[in-house]
């Protein structure tokens, strides 16, 4: 197992800049997620780590060694793809053992390692079965087995759960994370599914247009998004942005929106009068009959334990996640209040989160 250090990595495809100056380190034993929409450069980054693409500029170190221009086969890593390419004519055991057979290991050693891998993945009972009859989940477990059996320095995974049912995906997430806890293998995992990233990763790098917009723990990214892009990309429904036109001084604890003064975390930087966005998560919004930012209930989505209430205001649409037992009726006028300590303020022009009591912790921690 090893650390992966990326320095000033760039990749151009002709005129198109896929990755623009990325620098980050994946610590030994860390579960690291590259998260972003399609076309953000996450897969290109992963393929450069794997050696399937050569960088235009920059350096990649694996376990301290410079591997930037080494062939994929000379890097001690295992790659798991979204489309699990299993050999259809071989059984599970032969599929898992195949990489070792290629390396010319003695068959007794192959057998031992295949059995050990099957035990880790809890698929021992499948070893003699043909792969063609397996369910999607079991096929993906076999594909993982083929990666694990090699005992590489790092695992690279490109949306390995993308082809599975949404419900089953969450089960596999739990399984993958438990597997990681047992193996403690350095893992770089690419996905566009924020739930996968949130539930498994130690560290998430949120990418957009070839740039890492934020690099932090899942909780940090959720509670203290560095940019409006990150705030919008993470969370379901995503963060609400309420429009405001105001200036803020250092120490300000309120922002005027319409006729309402909304309490916000104390500012740690000032900004002259500007277009701002007040960012608040749906579960930090509450509805009340009197007062608050007024709006009309436009949609109610019942989800069992909770419901999502969509409210249109003259400053933008706000979604609230509230208990399913609370009252909310279409067409009704309601007031919105926001939990003050969880509010982020963004400069709309740059999309950057302004420094406040909430966000200063992010800079230091």
């Amino acid at each position, binding site marked *: 197992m090893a650390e992966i250090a990326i320095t000033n990595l760039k990749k151009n495809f002709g005129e198109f800049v896929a990755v623009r100056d990325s620098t980050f380190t994946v610590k030994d034993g860390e579960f690291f997620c590259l998260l972003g929409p399609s076309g953000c450069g996450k897969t290109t980054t992963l393929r450069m780590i794997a050696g399937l693409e050569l960088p235009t500029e920059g350096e990649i170190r694996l376990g301290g060694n410079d591997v930037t221009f080494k062939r994929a086969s000379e890097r001690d890593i295992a790659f798991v793809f979204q489309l699990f390419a299993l050999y259809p004519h071989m059984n599970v055991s032969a599929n898992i053992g195949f990489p070792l057979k290629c390396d010319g290991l003695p068959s007794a050693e192959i057998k031992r390692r295949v059995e050990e891998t099957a035990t880790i993945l809890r698929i021992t009972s499948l070893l003699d079965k043909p792969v063609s009859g397996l369910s999607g989940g079991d096929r993906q477990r076999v594909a993982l087995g083929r990666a694990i059996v090699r005992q590489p320095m790092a695992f690279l995974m490109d949306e390995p759960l993308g082809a599975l049912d949404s419900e089953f995906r969450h089960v596999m997430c739990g399984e993958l994370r438990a597997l990681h806890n047992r193996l403690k293998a350095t893992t770089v995992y690419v996905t566009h*599914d924020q*739930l996968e990233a949130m*539930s498994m990763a130690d560290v998430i790098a949120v990418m957009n247009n070839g740039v890492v917009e934020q690099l932090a723990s899942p909780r940090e990214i*959720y509670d203290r998004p560095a940019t409006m892009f990150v705030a919008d*990309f*993470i*969370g379901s429904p995503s963060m609400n942005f309420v429009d405001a036109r105001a200036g803020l001084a250092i120490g300000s604890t309120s922002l005027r929106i319409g006729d309402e003064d909304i309490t916000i975390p104390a500012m740690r930087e000032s900004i002259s009068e500007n277009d701002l966005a007040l960012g608040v998560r*749906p579960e930090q919004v509450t509805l009340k009959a009197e007062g608050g930012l007024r709006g009309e209930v436009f949609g109610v989505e019942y989800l069992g*334990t909770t419901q999502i209430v969509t409210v249109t205001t003259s400053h933008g649409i706000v979604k609230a996640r509230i208990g399913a037992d609370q009252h909310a009726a279409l067409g009704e006028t309601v007031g919105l209040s926001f939990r003050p300590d969880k509010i982020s303020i963004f400069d709309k022009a740059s999309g950057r989160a302004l420094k406040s009591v909430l966000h200063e912790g992010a800079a230091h921690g």
Partner: protein
Amino acid sequence: MADVQLHSVSKSFGSTKAVQSLSLDIADGEFLVLLGPTGAGKTTLLRLVAGLEKPDTGSIALGGIDATHLPPAARDVTFVFQQYSLYPHLTVFENLAFPLRSPVRALDETTIRNRVNDVARLLKIEDKLGNAATRLSGGQMQRVAIGRALVRSPACYLMDEPLSSLDAKLRGELRVELKRIQAELGSTILYVTHDQIEAMTLSTRIGVMDEGHLVQVGTPREIYTDPINMYVASRLGMPAINFVPVSTFPALAAPASATIMGLRTEHLSIKKGRGGEGEGAGTVRWIEHLGDQNHVHITLDGQDIVTLSDPDSDVQQGDSVTITPTHPLYFDKHGLRVRN
């Protein structure tokens, strides 16, 4: 628009019984969502209604007329597939107009133009009408595919996971739009998905399917709060419902025939520290921060249970906790609901 009636419909493929003696009435203007995992028979049912498959037994009526033996073209339905198949050489306008240009309809150009413009406005793609169909984002292409179904006013729309190939954000947006459009048009929609959030948010009623059987039909609230068995209970809810033996809580008076207790987040309260004899003593194994939801994994009497954490709760990993069920769901040894 019209109602759809299925009466004892069965369909087998070789030894696989895809749909088994299924009866279902879909009311005019209803949004009925069939929910179930892969292989439950949802898509087969949709294809039977469309006429793409013939039932082995049973009958299908559209708008009160027996359609069991009608070919697909003679049935007044439209189908939206998971993979949007647009005509790549045509513009968005021509893709939308295509179903109206069928010689059997013989509509004049003004009518066609009006219908296409109406639908494009509904789907917010009116500024894309002149674009080539291939020069659209995934979400726009899927909207065109849905629009191509909407330009006709069939007895029933059939939709097979139309949103599943889209990313989470877009899916959320189109979900709201589809619901709005359905309400505006008063359309009858039969919609298939394995996504419980789509089922909960879109449907007038949900039909839960399991291995070719329609297990329960009801409003989202009925299905969620009043499931008839453990299978239905486990289909809805994030995190999924927890099942524990009733013996876990000896202090609780369970109905006589109940062996299993189903606990969702709203069925249990968590207190820090150890309670008295017979109360549920658990240990917090792990707190999974998913952002909008934090899942607390608790080991209780040797079993794992998962619940949503209270946002203001200070419960931490390793804490000893006491769990008190409130109005749990009870099930007997066959998995059937026991009402108390």
